[in-house]
C-alpha cells in the first residue's frame, strides 16, 4: 500500500510499530501488548496487603525477564546513618594494614562510586552474614605477600547517627562509631 511520508519521489514507508495498526490482527496484538505491559508496570507497585500475595504471580513473568518496579527512594524516611565498611588486615609478623573501598573522584568516578556505596550498604547487614567470609577472603587475597595470605581480616562497620534538623538549624550528629562485625582467619 502506498502510504507514508513522501520525500521528492522517494516514499517513506510506515514504520513497523505503526504498521501493526493496519491489520485487525496487528491491532489486537497492540491492544494485548499495551494492556499486559501497562499492568506489569502498574500492578507490582501495589502496596502490601492481604490481597497482594495472592496476585503476585500475575507479574512474575515480568519480574523474571528483568522488569523491576521499586521506586521507594529515600523512603519512608532518608536513612539516618552515614555508613562505611573497612577491613583491618593482620599479618603473621604482627603488622597491620587497613583496606577501604576506593574513594573515587566526584566527576567521572562518581558513576562508579555509587556501586561501591551500594555494596557497603548491603554487605554490612546482619542479614547478609553469609557474604562476610567470602568478602574477607577476597580482601585477604588483595594483601597476599609472597603467596601467603594475611593471618586474619576483620570487617569493621562504621557509622554516623544523624538526628533530624532541629528548629533553629541545630544539627546533632554523632561522630564516627565503629564495630568489628566479623573476623576471618587464614585456615
Amino acid at each position, binding site marked *: 500500500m*502506498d*502510504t*507514508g*511520508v*513522501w*520525500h*521528492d519521489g*522517494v516514499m*517513506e514507508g*510506515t*514504520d*513497523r*510499530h*505503526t504498521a501493526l*495498526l*493496519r491489520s485487525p490482527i496487528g*491491532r489486537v496484538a497492540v491492544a494485548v501488548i*499495551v494492556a499486559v*505491559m501497562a499492568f506489569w*508496570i*502498574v500492578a507490582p*507497585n501495589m502496596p502490601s496487603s492481604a490481597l497482594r500475595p495472592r496476585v503476585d504471580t500475575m507479574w512474575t513473568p515480568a*519480574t*523474571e525477564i*528483568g*522488569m*523491576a*518496579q*521499586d*521506586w*521507594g*527512594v*529515600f*523512603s519512608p*524516611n*532518608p536513612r539516618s*546513618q*552515614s555508613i*562505611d565498611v573497612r577491613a583491618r588486615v593482620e599479618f603473621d609478623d604482627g603488622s597491620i594494614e587497613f583496606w577501604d573501598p576506593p574513594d573515587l573522584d*566526584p566527576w*567521572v568516578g*562518581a*558513576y*562508579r562510586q*555509587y*556501586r561501591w556505596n*551500594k*555494596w*557497603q550498604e548491603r*554487605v554490612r547487614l546482619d542479614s*547478609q552474614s553469609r557474604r562476610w567470609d*567470602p568478602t574477607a577472603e*577476597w580482601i585477604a587475597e588483595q594483601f597476599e605477600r609472597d603467596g601467603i595470605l594475611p593471618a586474619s581480616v576483620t570487617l569493621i562497620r562504621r557509622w*554516623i547517627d*544523624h538526628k*533530624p*534538623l532541629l528548629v*533553629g*538549624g541545630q*544539627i546533632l550528629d554523632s561522630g564516627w562509631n565503629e564495630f568489628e562485625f566479623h573476623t576471618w582467619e587464614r585456615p
Partner: protein
Amino acid sequence: MTTLADTGALSDVAPTKAGESRTRRAAHRMFVAERPAWPLAIARIVIGIATLGWALSMWFDATTFLGGDALVGTEFDSSLWRWLPIDSDLDARLALVALVVAAIAIIVGWKPTVWFLVAFVLLTALQRRAPSIINSGDLILRNLTLLLAFTPTGAALSVDRVRRFGRDALFTSGRVAPWGLRLVQLQMMIVYLFAFWSKSGESWRDGSAVSTVFRIDDLQRFGPVGLLVDSVAIVAILTWSTLALELALGGLLWAKRLRPWLIAGGIALHLSIDTFVLVGFFGITMIGGLMTFLDAERIDAWVTRARPQPAERSESDTDHPDTDHPDPGRPD
C-alpha cells in the same frame, strides 16, 4: 506530506464518523494518531548515552564485581532469570563490549529496536550477576531499554533514516503511532507517583528530610553544602517542593498546558540531585524518559524553521554527491 491517515490506510481505526464516542476518539488520539517521532528520537539518544556510560563505568570494576573471583562471588547472583550466564571475567567483558556496541547503535539510530532489546538483555544479565551493587537508576535504565523497543525511535535523527533518504532526512521526522510511547510515559509517571507515595515518613512531613539526605556522608558527591543542611527554611522548601514535584510529575504530566513546566521542573530536580548526591545513572535516565513528553509537533515546527534553505542544501549536496536521494524534502 502524505501520511497514513491522509491516504485512508487507517480509516478503519480513525474515528472520524459523526457520533463516534468520545472514548473512542480519545483512545485514537492516545494510541493511534500519528505524530513526529522527535521526542522518541531524543529519548533514544539520551538513554543510549546513559547505557554507554553505564557499560564504560562498569568496565573498570568488571573484575571486582562481575568476574569469577570477584568481591561479590557468583554464589550471590540473583535467583531470577539471568538471560546469559556471566561467571567469569571474560564473560563479563564480552557482555560489556556487546553493551557498548548496542549503546552506540542506539545513539546513532542503527536498528535501534533490535539494539534496545539486546541492551535490555545484557543489562539484566549483568545487573543480576551482582544485584548488591545496583540502585534505582540501574533498574529504570533496564526498564526503559525494554519499553523503548516497543517504539519507533529510529523514525528521526537516525542513521537508518540517513541511509534511506540522505543526509537531509536529519531535518525531517517520520510520523508514528504513539502506542509504545504511552508505555514509556506510564512507566515514568509511575516512578514519580510511587516515589512520592513511599515518602510517608516523619522527616518528609516535617520538612527536614533534605537536610538528612545531604548529611549522609556516603551519598555526598562534592561534600556537605551548608545551607542545604542547616537552614530550616531552605531545607523545608526543598523537602516539600520535592514532594510536590514528584506528585505533579506522577499525576499531571499528561496535562498539555502544564507539561513544559513539569518537564523543566523534573530536569531541574534530577540535575540538582545529580549534582549533590551519588545516584549513578538515575538522573540522566530519568531525564531521557522525560524527553518522551516533549511536544512533537512543536519540535517539528522548530526543526522545519531551522532547516537549511534550498540554496544551502544544494551546496551541501554538492559536497556529498554520493547521496542517493539528495533532497528528501521537507514535509508538504
